[in-house]
């Protein structure tokens, strides 16, 4: 069964450093998402991406964040200058269609720890 993969599983970085979180969505999916979950809080939407463009982004997704599909398989989330409050579990997801009734398939997550 196809699945979304994410690397690394755990990333530790110093405050102010840049990090890139990587995701490989399901191969025939066209819509990609990033969500995050701060410890003890709800899973929150960050951004959706289609056809090499951001479709929608939340208030959390400020200028420190960017997404990219650098090739035909990877989807990345970059945090330019990490802050302590960026520590969270980051989930990548993909779906085959942009319709809201289509389920999104999630990766196992990357735990980001900012020191």
């Amino acid at each position, binding site marked *: 069964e196809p699945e979304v993969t994410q690397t690394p599983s755990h990333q530790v970085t110093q405050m102010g450093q840049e990090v890139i979180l990587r995701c490989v969505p399901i191969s025939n999916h066209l819509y990609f998402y990033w969500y995050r979950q701060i410890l003890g809080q709800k899973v929150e939407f960050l951004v959706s991406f289609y056809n090499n463009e951001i479709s*929608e982004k*939340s208030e959390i997704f400020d200028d420190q964040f960017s997404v990219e599909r650098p090739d035909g398989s990877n989807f990345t989330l970059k945090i330019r200058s990490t802050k302590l409050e960026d520590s969270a579990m980051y989930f990548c997801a993909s779906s085959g269609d*942009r319709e*809201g009734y289509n*389920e999104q398939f999630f990766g196992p997550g990357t735990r980001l720890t900012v020191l």
Partner: protein
Amino acid sequence: AQSVAQPEDQVNVAEGNPLTVKCTYSVSGNPYLFWYVQYPNRGLQFLLKYITGDNLVKGSYGFEAEFNKSQTSFHLKKPSALVSDSALYFCAVVPRGYGNKLVFGAGTILRVKS
């Protein structure tokens, strides 16, 4: 504001007994409704969804959920719980006509004891 509430942080049930994990939502219009499950060190796995039609929807692993429009609820149920059902369960909604981002509840830990 759109929100999803899962009023129970944890639900404990004995193996073989029926289980219910509660979810209510506050969203304008008629949203699409989802349940996801998360096992340790795994991503969120889709269980089931409600789009339209029959209020009782069936999903993976014997789970079902009942949509109640008047109570704005979408409770997850299973007639007979298994120890292997122990996991973290998330209710989520997508408001119709507002893109496709999922709005999640806080999650409910389900513990099934043998």
